[in-house]
């Protein structure tokens, strides 16, 4: 079997569970949003699950990721608990950022999920900095920067990748090309078809991969992460993917044709993963449905946990916001 060369049954089931958790989490939040029960905004990632999960399944707990304004998938993939994410979205004291961050500013430092940064492209040089830190301290940890196609023409993209390249920093740059920077199609801002071609400009390897195929993502990210860990420097990975919903709440996505959306949904990464599990690893539909059900239960419990959690203490409004001066050396 071709797939068994990449993953075993247990690994692929774990990958499926993560993707199912992300998809159902986003879908459930959207339903609650339609009922007016979600405070604040939503930037959802349905359709892009394979990238987050395929990359993060290759990472160790002490490796770090840097995410974006669309962080839920990355956070769940890196192991941040649904409870702490839900509580953060509901602005509760038990949230992963103490209720101060909201949907765009999720974090799970103990599992290597650095605070997500909603500024487009801003995390690229930060990830390079973290990787240089690992290099200097002699650690074999790896940093991953997630960003979208909208980030590739931001100045920080050039600065961050170039510095990482010349210093052989252990970082992997993951471009989730979902074709749209908010509502702007990538062809309106970038003339090259494959954004990974940019890697040549920095003298590093670049690869364009089907981001709707979690096995292809897993394999390509595994190679890039191993390279980084071995001291061979950064890689620019471009995953062609698609976000099913609009950019954020209230974005009807009318700039896309129904045919285009249908084209991408026909390549759904979760459906494809299910197909591989049943065809190559003899998983039954019941077995996979059970995984889905377990994920949904976890999600519902997390929202219940969030709703029932206490509000932040107003006296702690400055806590974790500014570094304590006395601790600065």
């Amino acid at each position, binding site marked *: 079997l071709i797939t068994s060369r990449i993953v075993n049954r247990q690994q692929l089931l774990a990958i499926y569970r993560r993707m199912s958790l992300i998809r159902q989490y986003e879908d459930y939040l*959207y*339903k*609650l*949003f*339609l*009922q*007016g*029960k*979600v*405070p604040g*905004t939503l930037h959802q990632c349905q359709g892009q699950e394979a990238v987050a999960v395929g990359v993060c399944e290759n990472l160790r707990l002490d490796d770090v990721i840097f995410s974006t304004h669309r962080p839920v998938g990355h956070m769940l993939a890196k192991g941040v608990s649904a409870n702490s994410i839900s509580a953060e979205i*509901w602005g509760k004291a038990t949230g992963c950022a103490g209720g101060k961050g909201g949907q765009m500013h999720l974090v799970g430092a103990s599992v290597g999920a650095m605070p997500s940064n909603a500024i487009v492209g801003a995390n690229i040089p930060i990830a390079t900095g973290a990787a240089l830190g690992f290099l200097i301290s002699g650690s074999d940890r790896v940093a991953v920067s997630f960003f979208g196609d909208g980030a590739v023409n931001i100045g920080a993209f050039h600065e961050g990748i170039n510095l990482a390249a010349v210093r052989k920093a252990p970082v992997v740059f993951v471009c989730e090309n979902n074709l749209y920077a908010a509502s702007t199609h990538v062809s309106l801002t970038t003339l090259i078809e494959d954004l990974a071609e940019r890697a040549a400009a920095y003298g590093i390897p670049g690869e364009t991969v089907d981001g709707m195929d979690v096995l292809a993502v897993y394999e390509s990210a595994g190679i890039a992460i191993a390279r980084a860990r071995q001291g061979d420097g950064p890689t620019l990975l471009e995953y062609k993917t698609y976000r099913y919903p609009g950019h*954020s*709440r*209230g*974005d*009807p996505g*009318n700039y896309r044709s129904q045919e285009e959306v249908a084209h991408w949904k026909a390549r759904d990464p979760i459906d494809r993963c299910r197909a591989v599990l049943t065809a190559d690893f003899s998983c039954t539909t019941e077995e996979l449905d059970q995984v889905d059900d377990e994920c*949904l239960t976890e999600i519902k419990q997390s*929202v*219940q946990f969030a*709703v029932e959690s206490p509000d932040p203490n107003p006296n702690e409004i400055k806590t974790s916001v500014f570094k304590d001066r006395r601790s600065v050396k």
Partner: protein
Amino acid sequence: MSVPIIIPDLGATGGDVVLAEWFVKEGDRVHEGQPLFAVETDKAVSNVEAFCHGYLEHILVAAGETVDIGATVATLTESSVATEMQRPPINAESNGPSHLELPDSSHSGAPTANRLHERLNSSTVFASPRARRVAAEIGVDLKYITGSGANGEIHERDVHRSAEQLGTSLAGARIAEVPQFCASIEIDVSDVVDLQKRIAETSDERGTQAVSVSDFILAATARALRKVPALNARLLGDGVEYLEDVEIGLAIATEQGIRIASLHEADRLTFSEVVSRSRHLIKQVTCPGLPEAAVSGGAITVFNPEIFALDQFTAVIQPSYAAALACGAVKARVVPRDGQLVIRAIMHATLSVHRQVDDGVAAATFLKLLKEQLESPYGLLMGLRSVLS
């Protein structure tokens, strides 16, 4: 049991949220993810989808009404109203509405929809947010406007066109708010009258069209406007848009009131084209059944109701126009000329100008140019096009 369908917080930056259209009716079976209705915010028109399966029980807010975020606009039941007793709940185990019940943490007490926009309440109207705002400002009912956009969507230009067709009566609400000033000038149109007579004499023989003083005024206005670009503008919202071509609104008296028809690219027309186009416009506006005259917001409207024999008057500025020129009737007056009293054909022209486009200099320049053109009208017979080339 029934669950409320609400207006979700779509991230509008302010202003009204309007329930634009219902895609389902009471009693319809709806599926999770199915679009139920469209909401128009200041940002976009978005479809709101059903968050669960069920049957649409009651629609509480009609299309076209302004709604608050969080307002309940409909209710959904698990079973069809008609067969409520027999039918089992839809997907009672996993997807029933009751499974999504949570303490309402973000909205305390959903407000009911208010009915500010009563005039929009009976039928669905597709219109851009900007068109709706302009229509509300001018006081034009969107129901009576034919949209030129995709699927008949109403754009701002359609609102202006409609406002012009409806004439001054509807524009009245806005006129009171237009900060404007007026400037007047006396024009000796004896040569125009003389020229007009001579053309009339030859037209009988050659079968060409008779011309009126209005035709000379239109031609002179086009030229003067070309030389005073500050006035060749129209007002869009709070801003001023300067036009490339000279568009003149021709005010035409009809039984229903004043109608405005647009003379496009008036500065590019020869004099005979001005004559034939304006005749055509008058025919289109005054004879029902003919295709509607092409109208759009221009820079200046010209009023010249010769039949009323007014000495001089002030014209109201039409919505989106920068100025209005009011020409009184041509009358024989005794005037001093070269130390002698002579009888000349005199007309008074009064220009009303929107304060936003001019502080007075442009208006004065325009009237001076208009006077020069009309007092020596022979150049007008040459098209501006030929003058430029």
